[in-house]
């Protein structure tokens, strides 16, 4: 068997693929965070909770209303995005202009309340969400056996991430959004409804988290705590990519997924800290992150 640094090539390719799957989740979640931070300067600690809510929306939609996976893929992010807009209008807008710590504490509190309530109602052990029949099989890639569903996750997240990047960086709507962060009063003077724009941005970022939650639900057990462990890693991803950098969050999400995958082979015990080690290194060498501008 061909080996590189003593690791068989088949294993390397396998871990690369799995790393991309996990990286897709990191990318999608860190993207939402980066959008929210970049345009609103809010550190959204409730992101993990919205991811969990997305998964629960899919699960309960299926169990109570018979909504299938494909419909949930659209409906759950919309529903959770609306919840996000309500949160923004009722609570979050009151902390704009204050120290970012207030937004962080507020969203962290919301996350705890959300997690605690879901735990109270649904317990800790979680529930299974079936893989949609159309994606149930697996393909033999020669070096590994890849479930179709995981391949689908990579595909959809790449599409979603790059379209989001395109909208924000390359369209008129995106230009307006960016203008709102540069000089909101001026933009308002041009007749743009800035508060609406901000609420929609938050809703959009939250919807991305919920979409990641729906995508994750057939892979892991849907439970109240599924988002809390993930969100910490995702914050590290955002810091590495550069706070607020859309492109940086996508690329570093994917790359860190792969790095983590290799750590799982080389030294598995460190797989949950490797991202933080990289974060520390990046902060020392390049405090603005790999793609940060300020």
């Amino acid at each position, binding site marked *: 068997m061909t080996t590189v640094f003593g690791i068989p090539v088949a*294993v390397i390719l*396998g*871990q690369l693929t*799995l*790393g991309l*799957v*996990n990286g897709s*989740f990191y990318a999608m979640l860190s993207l939402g965070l980066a959008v929210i931070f970049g345009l609103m300067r809010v550190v959204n600690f409730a992101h993990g909770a919205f991811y969990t809510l997305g998964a629960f929306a899919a699960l309960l939609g299926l169990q109570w209303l018979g909504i299938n996976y494909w419909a949930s893929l659209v409906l759950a992010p919309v529903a959770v995005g609306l919840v996000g807009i309500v949160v923004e209008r009722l609570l979050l807008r009151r902390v704009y202009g204050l120290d970012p710590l207030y937004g962080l504490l507020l969203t962290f509190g919301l996350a705890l309340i959300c997690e*605690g309530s879901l*735990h109270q109602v649904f*317990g*800790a*052990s*979680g*529930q*299974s969400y079936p*893989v949609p029949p159309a994606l149930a099989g*697996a393909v033999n890639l020669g070096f*590994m*056996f890849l*479930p179709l*569903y*995981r391949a689908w996750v990579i595909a959809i997240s790449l599409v979603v991430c790059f379209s989001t990047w395109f909208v924000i960086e390359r369209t008129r709507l995106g230009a307006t959004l960016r203008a709102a962060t540069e000089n909101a009063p001026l933009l308002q003077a041009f007749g743009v409804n800035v508060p609406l724009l901000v609420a929609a941005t938050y809703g959009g970022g939250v919807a991305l988290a919920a979409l990641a939650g729906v995508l994750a639900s057939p*892979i*892991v*057990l849907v*439970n109240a*705590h599924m988002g809390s*462990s*993930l969100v910490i*890693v995702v914050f590290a991803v955002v810091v590495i990519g550069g706070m607020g950098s859309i492109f940086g969050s996508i690329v570093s999400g994917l790359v860190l997924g792969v790095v983590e*995958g290799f750590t*799982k*082979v080389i030294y*598995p*015990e460190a*797989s*949950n800290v490797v991202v933080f080690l990289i974060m520390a290194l990046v902060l020392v060498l390049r405090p603005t992150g790999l793609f940060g501008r300020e």
Partner: protein
Amino acid sequence: MKLRMLTLAALAGLVAAAGGQALAADEVVIGDIDDMSGVYADVEGAAGVEAIRMAIADFGGTVLGRKITLLTADHQNKPDIGAAKFREWADQNGLNLLLGGSNSGVNIAMSKVASAKKVPFFVIGAAGASLTNEDCTAYTVHYVYDTTSLANGTATAMVAAGGKTWFYLTADYAFGTQLQNAASKVVEAHGGKNLGAVRVPLGAADFSSFLLQAQASGAQVLGLSNAGTDFSNSLKAANEFGITKTMKPAALLAFDTDINSLGLQTAQGLTLTTGFYWDLTPETRAFGKRFFAKINRMPTMDQAGVYSATLTYLKAVKAAGTTDADKVMAELKKTRINDMFAKDGYIRADGVMVHEMYVMQVKTPQESKYPWDFYKVVKRMPGEEAFGPITGLCPLAPAPK
């Protein structure tokens, strides 16, 4: 100055009040410290508290003419919190019995308090066998199961069924490694071979990388040396990646709540060991149904165990005619335990409650006829076989010559 005197007086009053509580001889105080909000909260948790309440009510609510009070706390899987709460109750509330829920790390810390404060301490949900070996105390009773009995059950059955080579997926903390070591010894003793293990950080988001490593080992058996959500998520991924087609999964610790979460489609064929199953005898079924009526779930072995443990303690207090810790422990160690949980169970010098354990196989969706119809009995293991001989590692219990 006057203000300071007042404050002092108020403080003195408070201390007196707290002291008065400690001296209250009109109550028997039972405490339960468990994971109420984390990954193990469904294994025992709030439903376990309900089971203790059922036991107290079934006993009549009083013993020796004294009211039975229950205190509960969440240790949040932190050993320092568990130990501090135990110490507080022992010092200020006149605690008579502590029931220790899930998490071996927390229970090891609490056993030190049991020994220092001389309070009977029944370990319910923690598996680490060190609790009755290196970490044993005169007041510890390991009631439901331990890593030794789990390994003796599942590993022996799997090796006998032809699973000679093993690879482990191990939770990277005390419990996971103790469980893996126990299983490895059993596998070797029965002529099997251990091909390796991968240590997975607790609460990993994705298990597929680790599973592919397990598959690459070429082992016949995938030893899942983890629990709770980690166990469920690793088994789910093993199915998804087709690993269960080439390797047989062995659950070294699984509860019926886990099977309920996973569904029989995913869990079918799995071998596991349990100390209790609701659908074994008319007695277990009656308890299961009573419990179900309150909680809307069938009891896990921990929830059934904590009910039985509470009754066992109260019966011993009644028989001894006192709550004196040493006298109650002496009474406990000379009586046989007979209820819906154990038949002819007994507490050994090292603290192990020796009772029958069951090796189970998870039914297929076709075999399952009604909700919670999950297991078929592969083997009933007599207590002596399940828990093995006294090792001699506990200074209170020399190994048999």
